[in-house]
């Protein structure tokens, strides 16, 4: 087990390193931050040079990257070009809202997808199954932002039930969480359905029935328990997608999260904030995947975490 975790940590370090490379160089393709910062006035060449030097942008690019990495190792994410605030504190302020949004979205997705997927599988070929599959299909093909805008139109603008944007009260959660949850539940319910169908065909389900157990006991204790294995794996793999979803939803609902911070920073060419934000997102994803792998080995007694190589 310890060996497994160590190996996973090593993988994580490599992933984060590769992402640091990608984000460091790709953000520099967006243009010169100094130009943006002086967009309003007519700066002197001296002022430009001073600012460039102050931000460390006069150094050769590999040196800049080296400094970025060195700071990263000591958990120093640098300071914002724009505000001079430390990126760590900006991340600290935005990570909470993002985590809450992701968790609420996941909760909504689970609450919808499991009942829909289970009923679909158990009532295979009936109207209920058809309804469930239509639901998945619509969920999968709906663009995030569009659903968000529709929900805002109906429930915020027309009905006035919930605020259209912002953060702070439980009501603020409703529309963003439902948007994220609905989108995610499309694909999740399809997976729950197919895993359940596969499991319900297994011989041990017939054994469970032959014990005289009630059908719902067979479905949940013997069926769902085994269907959870592929489902949980999938949710782990899908976690990156969930975060990507929050980035868009944070834009639509003006949610003060990590995603919106990154998007704003990209627009302002605020390199350290973009870099720091993306690295933190990567770390979260890697950590969640590690947790999923661990829970997988708990769910599935045949897998001993130490032994599996994948």
């Amino acid at each position, binding site marked *: 087990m310890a060996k497994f975790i160590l190996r996973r940590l090593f993988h994580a370090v490599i992933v984060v390193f590769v992402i640091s490379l990608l984000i460091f160089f790709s953000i520099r393709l967006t243009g010169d931050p100094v130009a943006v910062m002086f967009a309003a006035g007519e700066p002197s060449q001296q002022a430009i040079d001073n600012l460039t030097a102050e931000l460390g942008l006069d150094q050769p690019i590999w040196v800049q990257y080296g400094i970025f990495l060195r700071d990263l190792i000591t958990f120093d994410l640098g300071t914002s070009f724009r505000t001079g605030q430390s990126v760590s504190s900006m991340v600290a302020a935005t990570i909470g809202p993002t985590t809450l949004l992701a968790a609420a979205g996941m909760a909504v997705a689970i609450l919808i997808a499991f009942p829909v997927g289970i009923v679909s599988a158990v009532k295979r070929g009936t109207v209920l199954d058809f309804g469930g599959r239509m639901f998945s299909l619509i969920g999968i093909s709906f663009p995030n932002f569009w659903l968000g805008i529709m929900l805002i139109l109906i429930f915020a603008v027309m009905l006035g039930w919930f605020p259209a944007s912002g953060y702070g009260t439980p009501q603020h959660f409703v529309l963003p969480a439902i948007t994220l949850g609905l989108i995610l539940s499309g694909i999740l319910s399809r997976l729950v359905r197919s895993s359940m169908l596969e499991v319900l065909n297994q*011989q*041990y389900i017939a054994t469970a*029935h032959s014990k*005289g*157990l009630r059908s719902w006991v067979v479905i949940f204790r013997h069926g769902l*328990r085994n269907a959870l294995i592929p489902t949980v794996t999938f949710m782990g793999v899908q976690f990156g997608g969930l975060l990507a979803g929050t980035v868009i939803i944070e834009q639509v609902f003006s949610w003060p999260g990590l995603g919106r911070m990154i998007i704003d920073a990209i627009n302002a060419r605020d390199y350290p904030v973009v870099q720091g934000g993306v690295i933190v997102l990567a770390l979260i994803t890697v950590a969640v995947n590690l947790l999923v792998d661990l829970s997988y080995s708990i769910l599935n007694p045949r897998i001993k975490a130490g032994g599996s190589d994948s």
Partner: protein
Amino acid sequence: MLLSSSNQAPTGDLLVVENLEVAIPEEKRDVTIVNGISFTVPAGRTLGVVGESGSGKSLTSLTVMGQLPKNLKLASGSIRLNGEELTTLSTDRRRRLRGKEMAMIFQEPMTSLNPSYRVGAQIVEMVRNHQDVSRAEARKRAIEMLKLVGIPRAEEVVDDYPHQLSGGMRQRVMIALALANEPTLLIADEPTTALDVTIQAQILELMKRLQAELGMSIILITHDLGVVAETCDDVVVMYAGEIVERARVEELFAEPKHPYTRGLLESIPDIDTEVDVLPSIPGTVPTPQSMGTGCRFASRCPQAFDYCRENTPPEIRVNDTSAAKCWLYDPEVVAQHHPEHTAA
């Protein structure tokens, strides 16, 4: 009290099955896959069910258990256990009989146990589903059952997951599970096919011993005529969803009636050699969709005559203890239609 020792002396017929018909419901016309099955199992005795793959053995046993696959239906028939009609029971009453009055061992020992639960937990679940006992008592019972089926180190195995056990051990666990509530009827669907020869013999031996101890009746489904000879009292031979011959076991081997049974017996060199699959008879079983009138075995039967191809044979009593679904046993038909007579 867990081990109720109130096993009455075997009297009468425990299970009476009459005219079972299982069908796939289709828009136009149902497709019958198991047709007119009738048999009885006397208390404390063993009925063997033999027949090629696809002849309907497993479906028949699932019907008796009351757990047919969802896409199939019981079109007609009667199943009586201890005189009680089961086909008209509510699903809930029917469910309560499963695992208590009747238990089943499935064809595939490797996949019959739930991979996510320890074997002990699976037996405990079975016990507690039917008996009002504490978890600890049920666990004691599980260990007791594992010992009964000859599992060494039962106290440790009880906490193993199925994947930690060999096929033979898993099948023993399945038997322990099936017998945990001392059913009066045990249905064993090829309980030994997947196992190697020595283990096979041990498992059958074990089932016989437990039968004697617990006084239960067994329906033993098998491909293996050697197994039938050693363990069964009565036999029914199935072909294409029907019973084509029934007899006491000695009689079946000494004097098989149906040409299909004869074919089966002739193609084994020696009854004592173990065979995994039924010896092959040239030709194939007709599919349920393609079955028309006439004897279903006619196309493969070395003794078929024209009459057989156009007329479906009824079950004809040959003597007090055996019957065959074959025109050769109807003297009138033979006299009027058999080439040997008509040619003369």
